[in-house]
């Protein structure tokens, strides 16, 4: 439905000067398109304007890297700025922090009607209970919506979290008081106050939530916002932040196909971190917020471009070329695997890489479910590092006693070593198949061509629904090693990754 930013920009890019530093005219032309893309992604107008202004001052005069086009350079600056602006705590190693250390810590949820407060309250309670071992009490202060209290009560029962008994006729402030008492008496670590939905312009209801805040003095006040929100996001963010005081934001319905521009609006207006995202109606569908992914989503192309961009930065082309040639011959030893793993880490982990490929969202979730995170990757690399030179080159040497030694050396259990070996074998098999296919010329315009690309700038793989070569501005940087079936050059990744990685996760 949306014209991908890359399409919009391709025309502009053609006109951009080809070398040296970015001129004001280059930047101006490219940023007009970026601005439209942001607006189409529902970034609020004042926020988009401001953002473009900031990017412009950074971009004008910026040196264009040798290996990229000026257009790609602008995109990179846009993307980086977007990421920095969005950056939340989900990107930190420990995930988002909530100030809930001194029990009983009150957490208040606020937002517009139907934004997902009650559901998110239960999701967060479940997370705090299961991940952090906290004892949680939930209370519904929604005296407004029919059956709102019952809704929270049912959800509480579903996730095994206590809810404050319902006492009809009490005001929200009275309920908040009762929740505090009950939380202290009952030895709860956290008590969560789910408030009624309210419009930021409804004086009576805004005064009500202020009164609740003054009573409960929440340690965290989370503004729950629908990620499908349009231009009104600025008003909502501004009013709730000014009147109630917000400590963080939760974006719901990120499982939708909205572009999520509200994330930028929220972040820009409140200045508060986006802590979590809701990705479904089910109670376990709460995730940490990752700026990287959302930046790509807002740009609507980020996916491919970032991949290309980052690859350009992180990859040594020659090394990759060499590796790719080896792989085509079906040679894929532990050194190669290690390189792959390290590249994945640089690209932001498995989910980072996969999340950038259109249509891979679901798979990413599966991978996450299988704990395909950086920690796993790091351990895998450590395992390979504990192998001898010979073992790395000839993995078939790896017998029981050697495995034990390697496990001890890298601080893991033997089964994990086995998994790695299994994964290596699967990948090697695939490389072999690929090599054969390549020879038969099955991948015209795909892998073979890319690998054969001389002079470093091979044609990119076809975009979905687009003929190759339609995007002059995007002519990658393409380091060799993309794979067929996936758009753009996915550098250094083995083909059919999903199937091939079954040995990598914790499960199985």
């Amino acid at each position, binding site marked *: 439905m949306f014209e991908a930013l890359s399409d919009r920009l391709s025309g502009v890019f053609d006109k951009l000067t080809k070398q040296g530093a970015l001129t004001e005219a280059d930047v101006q032309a490219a940023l007009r398109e970026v601005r439209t893309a942001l607006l189409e992604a529902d970034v609020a107008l004042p926020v988009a304007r401001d953002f473009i202004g900031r990017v412009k001052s950074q971009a004008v005069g910026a040196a264009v890297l040798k290996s990229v086009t000026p257009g790609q350079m602008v995109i990179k600056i846009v993307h980086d700025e977007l990421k920095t602006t969005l950056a939340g705590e989900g990107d930190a190693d420990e995930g988002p922090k909530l100030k809930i250390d001194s029990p009983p810590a009150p957490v208040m949820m606020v937002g517009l009607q139907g934004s997902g407060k009650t559901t998110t309250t239960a999701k967060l309670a479940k997370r705090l209970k299961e991940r952090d071992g906290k004892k949680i009490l939930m209370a519904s202060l929604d005296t407004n919506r029919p059956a709102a209290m019952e809704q929270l009560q049912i959800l509480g029962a579903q996730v095994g979290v206590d809810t404050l008994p319902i006492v009809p006729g009490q005001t929200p402030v009275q309920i908040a008081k009762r929740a505090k008492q009950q939380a202290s008496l009952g030895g709860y670590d956290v008590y969560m106050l789910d408030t009624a939905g309210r*419009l930021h312009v409804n004086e009576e209801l805004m005064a009500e939530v202020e009164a609740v805040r003054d009573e409960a003095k929440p340690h965290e006040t989370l503004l729950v916002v629908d990620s499908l929100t349009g231009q009104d996001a600025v008003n909502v963010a501004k009013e709730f932040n000014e009147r109630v005081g917000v400590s963080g934001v939760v974006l719901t319905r990120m499982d939708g196909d909205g*572009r999520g521009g509200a994330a930028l609006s929220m972040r820009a207006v409140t200045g508060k971190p986006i802590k979590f995202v809701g990705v479904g109606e089910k109670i376990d569908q709460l995730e940490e917020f990752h700026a990287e992914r959302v930046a790509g989503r807002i740009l609507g192309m980020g996916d491919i471009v970032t991949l290309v961009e980052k690859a350009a930065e992180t990859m040594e082309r020659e090394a990759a070329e060499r590796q790719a040639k080896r792989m085509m011959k079906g040679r894929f030893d532990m050194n190669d695997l290690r390189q792959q793993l390290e590249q994945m880490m640089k690209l932001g982990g498995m989910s980072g890489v996969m999340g950038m490929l259109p249509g891979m969202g679901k798979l990413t979730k599966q991978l996450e479910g299988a704990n395909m995170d950086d920690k796993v990757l790091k351990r895998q690399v450590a395992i390979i590092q504990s192998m001898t030179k010979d073992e790395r080159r000839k993995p078939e040497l790896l017998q029981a006693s050697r495995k034990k030694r390697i496990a001890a050396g890298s601080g893991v259990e033997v089964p994990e070593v086995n998994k790695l070996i299994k994964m290596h074998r699967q990948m090697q098999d695939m490389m072999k198949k690929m090599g054969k296919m390549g020879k038969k010329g099955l991948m015209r315009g795909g892998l073979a061509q890319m690998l054969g690309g001389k002079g470093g700038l091979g044609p990119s793989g076809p975009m979905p629904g687009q003929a190759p070569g339609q995007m002059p501005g995007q002519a990658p940087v393409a380091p060799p090693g993309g794979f067929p079936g996936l758009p753009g050059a996915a550098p250094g990744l083995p083909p059919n990754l999903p199937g091939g990685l079954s040995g990598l996760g914790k499960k199985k």
Partner: protein
Amino acid sequence: MSFFSRLKERLLKSSSKIDEGVDALMESGDEGPVDAIAETPGTAASTETARSAESAEPQPGLASRMLGAVTGRSPAVEKQRVLDDEMLEELEELLISTDLGVDTATRIAANIAEGRFGRRVGGSEIKRVLADEVARVLEPVAKPLPLYAKKPQVVLVVGVNGSGKTTTIGKIASQLKGAGKSVMIAAGDTFRAAAVEQLSVWGERAGVPVFKLPQGSDPASLAFDALAKAQEDGADVLLIDTAGRLQNRQDLMEELAKIVRVIRKRDETAPHNTLLVLDATTGQNAISQVEVFRKIADVTGLVMTKLDGTARGGVLVALADKVGLPIHAIGVGEGIEDLQPFDPAEFAKALTGSTD
């Protein structure tokens, strides 16, 4: 408070933003204040004066409503500006800030510029023309929910999560009941916690029976059974609530398609209306919502809720323009009476901050 005054209050409240916008836009022009009477002969000074009455706070009462204009500036010094590329772009932006979308905003701004480009224009003229243009696009789609002789008339209500389906059903049931119809509601959201309880309360408020099955029941068979019961009872209208679903969830959209199929087994002409409930705060995703729900469930009309906030619901203009589905009603609050017919002129005025 009466519906009318609530609506007025809303209109006044929400008409300030873009209005400021248009005025600010005039400010940003390099033309100094000029004598409006001298410069724009077409402007009637008397109506302008009446219109300029400042009304920052919503006030009930006919007089202030009539004077409920918000230009806030004496017409004698109304700013004027040459309508050039820059101003055109700023106009587009104003429209975009109501969620109209870039495409439609560009088109509407271009229509306005036609015949005015390069000419000096005043803020009030621009506001009026904007409102007219928006109303013109909306006029053809403003149609009330049609009522048929067919008994029971089956109305299926669909939409994404939290858009206001259940509440809207309560409001419609109450209006139909008030109009002397015998109404039944089917609690077809068998998924969300307390959805049935919520709808039951609405049933009580509206004074109509609610057909329910336990949580977790198959929504398609529930709809089938409810229709059988409505036929048996001789109800005039059966309103079927459904669980919220995002349009990109194929499994849930298939579930919806099945609900429709199963209803048709009982009455092949049903559902007679399929209402898609849109939340006014939603941005451009509403377009995809309409497209997909329409494809899957033959949506026959739209209701937009939560227009009592600051969201302008400009996406309806884009939808009228691109899709052309009827818009039946708007939700302007959480109360049972807070459902208004969709009035394109009023909507356009609220959207553009125009006042006449």
